[in-house]
């Protein structure tokens, strides 16, 4: 476990993978020291942001091994089956880049079982791990000015779903009507880290 100081108000804890990052988040969250502002998991890190007037970084650093001892996961895991109309703007390009035909791209994308690695980019945007290795394609050279809400897209080793219309550089395979983020819900983000996601093609 490597830990880096980030400015005067955060530690970046490097862990094995997103599962470990999520479990460390839960572990610290069970008995958070006073002054913690954010526990923000990434692909293989947990950013621990704190108020330096309330919490001494050295003290936090000392307590981290104790938190690392308790990496059980108590969070409920949900499975989301998400209906997708596979008529995305970049389907043809992805087929060309991967050397597969359109039907095979759709088959492989909808056959995989995904795990929500972490949320980022926009409220409720899930980074979904588990993409078929043959579907790994780079982002667009130049991002689109507007990707519509519900766009199901891929980039590098991830699939993702745009919760709202934003600029974006991922390649769009299809669209869903599912509402991924609603601040008025008790749990605003539909997909939480650790949840399972699968896509079902609809016409």
């Amino acid at each position: 476990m490597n830990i880096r100081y980030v400015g005067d108000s955060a530690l970046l804890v490097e862990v094995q993978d997103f599962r470990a990052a999520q479990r460390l988040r839960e572990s610290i969250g069970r008995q958070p020291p006073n002054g913690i502002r954010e526990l923000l998991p990434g692909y293989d890190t947990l950013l621990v942001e704190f108020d330096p007037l309330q919490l001494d970084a050295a003290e936090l650093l000392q307590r981290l091994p104790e938190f690392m001892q308790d990496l059980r996961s108590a969070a409920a895991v949900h499975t989301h089956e998400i209906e997708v109309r596979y008529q995305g703007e970049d389907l043809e390009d992805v087929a060309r880049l991967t050397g597969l035909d359109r039907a095979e791209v759709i088959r492989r994308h909808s056959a995989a079982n995904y795990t929500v690695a972490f949320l980022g980019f926009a409220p409720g945007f899930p980074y979904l791990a588990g993409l078929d290795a043959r579907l790994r394609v780079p982002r667009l050279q130049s991002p689109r000015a507007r990707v519509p809400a519900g766009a199901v897209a891929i980039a590098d080793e991830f699939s993702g779903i745009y919760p709202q219309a934003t600029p974006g550089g991922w390649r769009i395979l299809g669209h869903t009507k599912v509402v991924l983020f609603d601040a008025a819900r008790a749990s605003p983000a539909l997909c939480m880290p650790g949840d399972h996601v699968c896509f079902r093609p609809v016409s």
Partner: protein
Amino acid sequence: MITVIEPGRFTSIQDEGRGGFAHLGVPRAGAADSLSLRHANLLVGNPQGAAALEMTLHGPTLRFAVDALIALTGGRMQVYLDDVPLPMYQSVSVCAGQVLACGPLLTGMRGYLAVGGGISTAQLLASAATDTLAGLGPPVLRAGDCLTLRPHSLLQGRYLRSPPEFSEQVTLRVITGPHQEWFPATALGSFLDGCYRVRADSDRSGIRLAGATVVERNPGELPSQGMLTGAVQVPGDGQPIVLLPNHGTTGGYPVIAVVISADLPQLGQLRPGVLLRFQAVNREQALQALRYAAENLRTASVCADPGLLEARGLMLLAKAHPALREACLQLGRRRVRLRR
């Protein structure tokens, strides 16, 4: 109630932001210059983090339907109440029916208007903050909008002990790292020696910089990881971006340094064209600076009787309105003499 006659360039409602939801991908948002927000609220007797108006480069024109106690802080601008110049950095009573016209900012990037009692808006994820990038909170002000005010009791006037000064040349203190291995050995030195101009395409998510020399870095990107306000990211083109409160929660560009907490409010006042330098300090120095800033905030606002407020106001008006300088100074001096 307040009616918006002219919305200004980009006027939004801001408070301390929606902290604690970053793991859902929700940016913190909130005031870009949190210190000026706190100053404005202190002057009208509100909790420091109460919702206020954040104005960008050019302020709004507003009609008050009720009596109110207001205060304007942040970058210096010319402000008029029914065509009479109004001082910033102190509380001012506004009567029902009066029109407050905020002009262009002469210094800094953002001004703040707090109203005694606070602006009443729906809370979304524990904050009233406008976040146009994530699409959360109220939209930016438009002509015809009505703002509802919370009830308040008019209290004694207050003024700011030392109004802020915003310069065209700014040095921000940073702690280097955390991704030092992404940069060749000479890059950090040249980054700290370099001088950067704030670009016009900066916004509430980040300040984009243009330097004479690019910051050299290794190719590629990091796996996505948590980011925080003040992080100085270096994208592939070597032109740094300093993150502001509306930044995306995760990112993949390596971070060469992070602005210390005590200097974060200054980020919100960097206007396009400002020349920026970075100075490395250690964590102990950063903490000392933050303690000093907290102590300053504790004693920032001072109670004053109406006579003293008027005298101070005239002195400030002399600064903001060169044409009125002599008249203001004379009146101000007479006020001060009368008080003695």
